[in-house]
């Protein structure tokens, strides 16, 4: 009989904690988005969809939505290509593999703010080492060396590349796990039957890895789409909102601008993507359960 309540007694505290600090604020985000709550203000007034209409009318917001998708999709495409190649290169034992694994992991493991600061220095407007190399090898003249974070187009490219750099290790280790789980005799049998490297890769290895590639992409997409740290450190959304994304705009509006309700309304626009990703995660999890 004691068993009936022992189970719930053991998991309820954790569930309640998560409910209080994820469930409640999640609902509050919606409640705030239809209100006029500011930092330091008391009371709550329902204002309907006012925040949403004013958000949708703002050019900064439209730019941020566009950028969020551009950044997420382009960096995930780069990550996917890079991680597949890198995982293949790391699969077999080679001297220094352990060190290589450590090195490959660092961009993901190091706090993202710290990796971003490293890049801010590498892409510095005056002392950029990238520019030094470009000038040294006469790709550009010293007086018109690129200002990576100061010109909209270059800033967008820089942000995408830093996101790619940050997420590549994560996707690589996950794909590597998928790759090593494929029984070795399957690709070998294909090789014996005369299939070349690329044929084996595209017709056997990649199809077998699809579920795991899905996992890497879903997590990668969500982490990139909802990240504001890279932007906050590299560009603060600038120049002229050219690198503004939904989460960074929510932060600048809601926290720095003290307009909690409008910030909440902006952040709500991340929810549809979260729902879609969660749905696919659930499907993956259930399929793993069945097999």
């Amino acid at each position: 009989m004691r068993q009936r309540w022992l189970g719930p007694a053991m998991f309820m505290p954790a569930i309640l904690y998560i409910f209080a600090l994820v469930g409640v604020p999640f609902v509050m985000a919606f409640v705030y988005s239809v209100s006029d709550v500011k930092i330091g203000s008391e009371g709550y007034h329902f204002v309907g969809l006012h925040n949403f209409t004013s958000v949708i009318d703002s050019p900064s917001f439209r730019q941020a939505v566009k950028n969020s998708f551009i950044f997420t999709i382009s960096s995930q495409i780069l990550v996917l290509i890079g991680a597949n190649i890198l995982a293949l290169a790391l699969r077999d034992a080679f001297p220094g593999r352990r060190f290589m694994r450590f090195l490959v992991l660092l961009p993901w493991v190091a706090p993202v703010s710290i990796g971003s600061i490293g890049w801010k220095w590498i892409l510095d407007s005056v002392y950029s080492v990238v520019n030094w190399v470009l000038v040294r090898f006469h790709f550009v003249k010293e007086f018109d060396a690129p200002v990576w974070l100061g010109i909209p187009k270059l800033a967008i490219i820089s942000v995408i590349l830093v996101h790619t750099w940050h997420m590549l290790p994560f996707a690589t280790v996950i794909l590597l796990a998928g790759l090593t789980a494929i029984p070795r005799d399957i690709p070998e049998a294909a090789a014996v039957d005369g299939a070349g490297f690329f044929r084996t890769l595209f017709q056997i290895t990649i199809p077998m890895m699809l579920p795991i590639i899905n996992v890497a992409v879903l997590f990668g997409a969500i982490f990139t789409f909802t990240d504001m740290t890279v932007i906050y450190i590299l560009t603060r959304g600038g120049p002229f909102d050219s690198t503004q994304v939904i989460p960074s705009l929510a932060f600048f509006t809601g926290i720095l601008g003290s307009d909690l309700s409008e910030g909440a309304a902006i952040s709500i626009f991340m929810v549809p993507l979260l729902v879609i990703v969660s749905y696919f995660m659930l499907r993956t999890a259930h399929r793993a359960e069945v097999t």
Partner: protein
Amino acid sequence: MARPARVVRTIVLWLVRIFFGVILGFPFLWMLITTFKRSPDLYNLKNNPFIFNEPPTLDNLRLLFNETLFLRWIANTAFAGAVVVVITLVLAVPAAYALARLTGEWGTQLGIGVFLTYLVPPTLLFIPLSKIVAALGLQDSLWSIIVVYPSFTIPFSTWLLMGFFKSIPKDLEDAAMVDGLTRWGAFIKLMVPMSTSGILTVVIFAFTLVTQDFVYALTFISTAAHQTVGVGVATFLVRGDVFYWQSLMAGCLIAAVPIGILYNIFLDRFIEGFTVGAVK
């Protein structure tokens, strides 16, 4: 198999490894070089930035340790990490066991539900949480993040530990319970000791997740002395528009590398958690 094909393959593989190794590792190499540079050397565009044109110096490290709050930030992070780890273990270990063993099929469903909450990003929750933190009287205190961080360490840890408990054969507990232990006794005296490596994994991951956060610490804490290392280095080592690049890079390197080493040791388990069982 023609030998030349093998040679070409090996060369291509090494080129790929070197290419990615250089790109992924470069920022950290650059931090290392910058750390020991003297300012006249660093801020001279005529100098080759890859070599030391003037002898390396330890002054930047001295500045970092003696004249900034760096050590304070490290201590804050370690303290917050330790408390968060304790809260996480106390709540997640029993929860994972209960969901893995006691509650049948819907325990697994609930476990997946718990894991999904890990996908709700801080950038969606930080605005309401800033009000909650203020209501609790924790604004601008290290305790604000200590209270909030378990909201993402518990889901992930519970999920990891569920897999771990499921891999232990049920017969062991049944035998122990036949020998007179209660269910709770079997959990405490048998399952927890048997799961030491799983629990250690959770300790490492909960701690590294704490070091990864930027948004919450930036939102809740405004006083420099109360910050964590991730936010402190990235925001408070910059005064106005002046970047103390050498000390900044030193701080980044010191904060990043130990975490990297820890993580690397426990990587395989981490992957198990993330792949949601898609790899068997």
